[in-house]
């Protein structure tokens, strides 16, 4: 036998078998030792896996196809409806109790202490960023240190499989939403309830946490304690989910930019505007006011036909005073409620404590801050509450418009009087109709005010909202037609230049021009050498010719929707014309 080749030569041969020296190959065929040497670095590998295997039982093709469809649905469909309970050390998950946009709530047993708890597992995307997680855990730590009989007690917070969770007191007896359905509340019980909630809210505000989504659904009711207020239900209210709304807010803002988060009926105007910077204690005060309003009257103060409409009402329209919806509410309590519902946060109670204290004063029959007793104080209050109205009316130059306003106001008062006297006997249908009429009167008032303010687009929106839905009675009278005509007439409306951005004329300030095209390119507006304004359609037909308006025209711009044509004048005014859209 030849002597064995050295290992390097062997390795080279393996590297490149095509050119391996014949004597090495011959040697390998004969020499077991060298073959072993080649294999010695080889870990056992199941090469037989690469072979053909006959399987006796194969699944049917149609079964695999069905399975593929099911898997596709599972991985792309809606989130898992029956995902396993969270794995939280020390707790045994017993059942799922609720499921919402924020996550899933489970009933669980504290294994060591034997007590029942609720575990809320948040959607994993809510607190995904490390800084968010740190904030979540920090806030949870502060909340866990707080013990208040009317705040759902937080025991623990953590993270399980990438999902943040909260272990908290288990409150089993429904929510305020259910408790409100059991019957009407007398004003004293309502005041006691909201006083209790305000005290709880104040305690949480003191540790720097704002709720942001206070509503009857977030107030849990507990029967495990003695009766604490004289409502129709002998349950103790406990506020849940402090601080959580912010995480939902920021997560949703990442995915659905432009949307507002929350429950429109209970959202404060600054939230409805998406003005997240100014969300503060006053935001929760607003929500407490909404709860008070609803407990007193049986309906939230702002209810539109759609969410968008509700948001509009929250932002723009003053609430119908609760005693008009349900007679017999003491004026002091009405004033407290309306003070919570001021559009401007600074005009509300600045803290939940001051709301609580004022409710305490009301309950103790003392004068409340919300309703000064002196005539001067009351006048100041009225002026402060509706300064825009006062100013708006003063600014109406047209006697005609003033007359319309007066008529409307009287009609409004008359309707309100009718509503009140009929309230006790009216059945559902009549109530519904009167609600529509009430809304209509409010909208007309707002449209008049908007026209006076030059906010013709708002005015148009308000008038559009007056149109009845299918099958609804039509509340519109001659005043609606009048205002529509006025809005759509070619009468010019002057605007302050500073206000132009919100109407979609942003560039007119910046770009002097003597020509503008409508967004659909079908109309062309020009200023000719004589200083006249001309509008032509695409076929060159003259649609409008106006002599020079006050001052020299130096800029032209159609609004984004093409409805309006704004002309900038040399004396820094903006004159808006109907843009003659077909």
């Amino acid at each position, binding site marked *: 036998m030849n002597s064995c080749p050295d290992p390097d030569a062997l390795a080279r041969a393996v590297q490149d078998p095509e050119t391996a020296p014949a004597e090495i190959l011959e040697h390998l065929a004969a020499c077991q030792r060298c073959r072993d040497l080649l294999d010695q670095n080889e870990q056992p590998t199941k090469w037989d896996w690469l072979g053909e295997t006959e399987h006796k039982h194969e699944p049917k093709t149609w079964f695999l196809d069905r*399975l593929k469809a099911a898997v596709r649905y599972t*991985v792309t469909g809606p989130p898992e409806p029956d995902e396993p309970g969270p794995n939280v050390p020390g707790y045994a998950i017993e059942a799922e109790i609720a499921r919402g946009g924020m996550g899933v709530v489970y009933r669980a047993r504290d294994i060591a202490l034997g007590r029942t708890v609720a575990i809320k597992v948040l959607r994993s995307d809510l607190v995904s960023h490390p800084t968010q997680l740190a904030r979540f855990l920090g806030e949870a730590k502060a909340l866990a240190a707080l013990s208040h009989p009317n705040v759902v007690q937080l025991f623990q917070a953590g993270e399980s499989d990438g999902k943040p969770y909260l272990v908290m007191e288990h409150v089993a007896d429904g929510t305020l939403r259910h408790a409100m359905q059991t019957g009407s509340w007398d004003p004293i019980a309502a005041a006691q309830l909201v006083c209790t909630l305000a005290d709880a809210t104040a305690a949480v505000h003191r540790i720097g946490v704002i709720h942001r989504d206070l509503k009857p659904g977030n107030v849990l009711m507990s029967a495990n304690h003695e009766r604490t207020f004289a409502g129709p239900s002998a349950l103790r209210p406990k506020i849940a989910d402090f601080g959580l709304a912010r995480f939902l807010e920021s997560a949703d803002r990442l995915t659905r930019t432009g949307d507002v988060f929350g429950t429109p009926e209970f959202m404060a105007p600054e939230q409805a505007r998406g003005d997240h910077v100014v969300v503060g204690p006053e935001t929760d005060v607003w929500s407490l006011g909404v709860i008070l309003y609803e407990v007193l009257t049986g309906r939230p103060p702002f209810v539109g036909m759609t969410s968008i409409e509700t948001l509009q009402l929250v932002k723009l329209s003053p609430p119908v005073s609760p005693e008009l919806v349900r007679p017999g509410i003491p004026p002091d309590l009405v004033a407290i409620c309306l003070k919570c519902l001021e559009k401007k946060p600074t005009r509300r109670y600045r803290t939940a404590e001051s709301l609580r204290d004022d409710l305490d004063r009301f309950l103790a029959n003392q004068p409340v801050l919300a309703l000064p007793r002196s005539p001067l104080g009351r006048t100041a209050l009225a002026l402060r509450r509706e300064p825009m109205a006062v100013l708006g009316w003063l600014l109406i130059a047209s006697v005609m418009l003033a007359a319309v306003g007066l008529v409307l106001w009287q009609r409004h008062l008359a309707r309100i009087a009718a509503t009140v006297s009929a309230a006790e006997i009216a059945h559902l249908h009549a109530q519904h109709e009167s609600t529509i009429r009430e809304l209509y009167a409010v909208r007309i008032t707002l449209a008049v005010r908007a026209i006076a303010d030059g906010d013709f687009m708002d005015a148009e929106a308000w008038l559009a909202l007056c149109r009845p839905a299918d099958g609804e009675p039509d509340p519109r009278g001659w005043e609606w037609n009048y205002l529509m005509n006025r809005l759509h007439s070619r009468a010019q409306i002057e605007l302050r230049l500073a206000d132009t951005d919100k109407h979609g004329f942003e560039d007119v300030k910046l770009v002097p021009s003597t020509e503008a095209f409508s967004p659909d390119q079908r109309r062309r507006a020009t200023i000719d050498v004589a200083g006249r304004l001309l509008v032509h359609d695409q076929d060159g037909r003259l649609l409008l010719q106006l002599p020079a308006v006050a001052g020299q025209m130096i800029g032209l711009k159609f609004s984004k929707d093409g409805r309006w044509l704004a002309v900038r004048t040399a004396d820094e005014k903006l004159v808006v014309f109907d843009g003659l859209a077909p």
Partner: protein
Amino acid sequence: MSELDDEISTSTTLLRRVAAEPTDDAAWDSFVDRYGRMIFRWCRRWNLQDADAEDLTQGVLLQLARQMRGFRYDPDGRFRAWLRTVAYRAWTRFLETRKKPGAGTGDSGVWRLLESAPARDEFVRRIEEEADRELLERAAVRVRARVMPHTWEAFRLLAVEGLSGKETAERLGMAVGAAIVARSKVSRMIREELDKLTPAGGTE
């Protein structure tokens, strides 16, 4: 399984694809073809009838997909540990949902066996083994494309089919030594590919 899925990207395994991109429909289809078949065959070895085997396969596979979707693989973490956890959770979750009222019962004897810890451990092991098998096949596909056909054949007959060097050499009309060297070369290349396919570097 010798039909190497050439149509599937060979750059990584199905499990890694669905772990990284849970909405990759094509990867999930291949996942069903491979792991669904595997689970079905395994069920049949428990002497479950076709209908029961289909129920179990569907239940377990859907749970597996859910777990993979819900319990995301962290690319920095250990893939093997992730896979084991996911398989474990899928199996226990599947048994839990079966216990719900209204779920089918099947043959109580077999089901009692299936609910035992050894059955669960074997399920997890089977999933891991299938993952290893897939990995090996991927590596083999990549190597096969890079070597001469007779080099591959020498490897296949010697290593996979288990023929002797003499038989192999006769079939392929090559020297015995050349066949042996070819086998060594290919197996070494496949192991290199395996290392590349498991970027975490751990022994998968």
